[in-house]
């Protein structure tokens, strides 16, 4: 199974949202990382065939997804970043409706809906109207609908937004158990989510793919560039902030502990530490 994206471009008047994006995706979990406006959502929508690219092509197993039509959508699951529900539908009705649109027979749909409601912990709320749901509950319902057809390609745009830490852990486990032999692409601002479940990370900036690799590969590039150092007064913190990319500032007693990404040792007392994905994200996206 392969999803190949070839020089995909989306242009809105004067703005290029996605710029000649190419990649070949094999089964695995892909974390799409990028700042707001980097083009992640536009890219995902084009993969889902709900936005037309200005140029470029997306092929599933060598065939253009446009020509595959229903056959492509049959193996697709999508959780959009912002989307609406039918407030007067119950959770069960909503999932049954989407299941019908996904072509599941009534019997199969009932089994799958009950199974997913249990997985996303909405079993007791199945007969409640969606308008009574909290943001997190709606998000869990959204995750359930995306997985109804056991999709081979699962696209999740900010799936963990609105979920509490416990739910996020549950979601990560769900994706990990689900992703075997499937292509899962997820975008998130919560870097730790990607760190835990992504096999490969795709970093996007201004519509372009600027980096890809496993978390280990990407972090390897940062090895020796992440420092922990102590500053003793406000003036020194200010000076370091102007000069380096500061990842974290932590005040403790009369001193300030700083986490800095830099190729050079920022201070005499700086100690080299293990980089993480947050360092990578901020190193690439912090505006200087």
């Amino acid at each position: 199974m392969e999803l190949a994206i070839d020089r995909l471009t989306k242009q809105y008047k004067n703005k290029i949202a996605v710029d000649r994006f190419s990649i070949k995706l094999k089964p695995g979990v892909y974390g799409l990382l990028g700042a707001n406006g980097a083009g992640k959502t536009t890219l995902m929508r084009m993969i889902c065939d709900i936005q037309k690219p200005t140029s470029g092509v997306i092929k599933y197993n060598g065939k253009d997804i446009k020509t595959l039509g229903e056959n492509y959508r049959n193996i697709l699951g999508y959780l959009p970043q912002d989307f609406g529900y039918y407030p007067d539908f119950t959770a069960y009705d909503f999932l049954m409706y989407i299941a019908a649109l996904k072509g599941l027979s009534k019997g199969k749909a009932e089994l799958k809906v009950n199974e997913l409601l249990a997985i996303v912990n909405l079993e007791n709320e199945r007969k409640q109207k969606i308008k009574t749901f909290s943001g997190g509950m709606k998000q869990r319902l959204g995750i359930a609908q995306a997985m109804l057809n056991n999709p081979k390609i699962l696209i999740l745009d900010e799936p963990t937004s609105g979920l509490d830490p416990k739910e996020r852990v549950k979601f990560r486990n769900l994706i990990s158990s689900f992703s075997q032999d499937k292509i899962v692409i997820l975008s998130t601002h919560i870097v730790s989510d990607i760190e835990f479940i992504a096999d490969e990370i795709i970093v996007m900036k201004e519509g372009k793919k600027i980096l890809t690799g496993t978390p280990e590969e990407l972090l390897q590039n940062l090895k020796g560039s992440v420092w922990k150092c102590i500053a003793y007064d406000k003036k020194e913190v200010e000076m370091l902030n102007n000069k380096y990319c500061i990842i974290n500032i932590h005040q403790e007693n009369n001193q300030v502990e700083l986490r800095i990404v830099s190729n050079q040792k920022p201070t005499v007392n700086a100690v080299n530490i293990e980089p993480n994905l947050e360092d990578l994200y901020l190193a690439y996206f912090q505006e200087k």
Partner: protein
Amino acid sequence: MRALVKYELKKIFNKKMNIVVIISCLFLIILLFSLSGTDFLATDESGESYKGKAAIILRKKQIKEIAGVLTNERIVDEIKRLQELKNNPDNIAIDSYGEKDLSREVYNKYLNNRLNLLTNINHVYGDDYINGLSTLDLENEKNFYESREKRIEELIVSSQDYKGRTYTNKEKEYWIEKSKNVNTPFEYDFYFGYSNLYSTYEMLIIGLIAICICISSVFSGEYQHETDKILLTTKYGKSKGATAKIIASYIFAFILFSIYLVSAILAVFLMFGAEGGNLPIQLLNILSPYNLTFAQSLIYNVVISYAVLFGIVGLTLFLSSKIKNPISTLVIDICIIMLPVFLSIKSGFGIINKILFLMPYNAIYSNFTKMVSYKLGNIILDLPIMTIVTYISIMVIALICAKKTYSKHQVE
């Protein structure tokens, strides 16, 4: 597909706004159609006035007294009687306009229950009240039905609008031929259920507007509430999903309009009764060229109404698939539906007038008296047929476009 249609219907009925509109319009329709009965007036021989059900009973009794086949002899007798009364100075008085006319007593005793009949017969001899009959030379009046045909022919040949436009020769032939096929002699009896139903029939447009309000968000609601992002990525979201929306809209429109239609008919018929179905529609206008009974004309009108409904539903769905905001869809819909209310049209010769005749408010009901025709190549179609053809065509084209637009919709 059944499940999808069920959920689409659920979406329509789940909206509180829709329920309010549906119920309000039902009450409004029942009220408007009942008014023809509750406000009905009749006067007896002594000049005493009655209103509502009592007036209807009195009127029915009066009509029954003069009911029967309108043979040539019967019509001549009626005219002769009128002339005799008018020619007798004892029967004449000065009316409120200062004109000489039959006195109130004679009017109440003789003319009151015959006025509809005589006014209608008078159309063959002139346009004005019953004056044509009063001065008619009965010596030369051999056959009423021949005179009627002659009059229709004259109207067809001489009709022209302010720009001098007339019927084409083919149209003239069509109408003269159609008119000749009308069964005569006419039978006269009580038909007020039908005539009063027809006098308010256009008000069913309220039901049409209610349906448009309810379905204006069928497609655009998905765009507006961003549910399109999920629906259009599902296997059948762009195909069966769109078809289900269309089917559900039509089921909803058909059921609701049928409820409105039946309520309207019942509101009138419960007051006036449904009798008169076998009588010719010429009792409404003697010059009508359509060979139809009242019952047939009602069926014909129901078919026309459904054709208009289906066309407008198709158009609404197309607009809904194209425009993100349901309010905009609704505004366009209402403009199309209500435009003819503000424009008066008399002839059907100019292209704009011909189009106006086909606009929903004018087209939803036909009284089968207008001789408006459309030339499509060598074929001549009269207004009712053209209405059906037009709205069914609109429906087919609009639905193809709606489905295509929705399936190609790009999320924002």
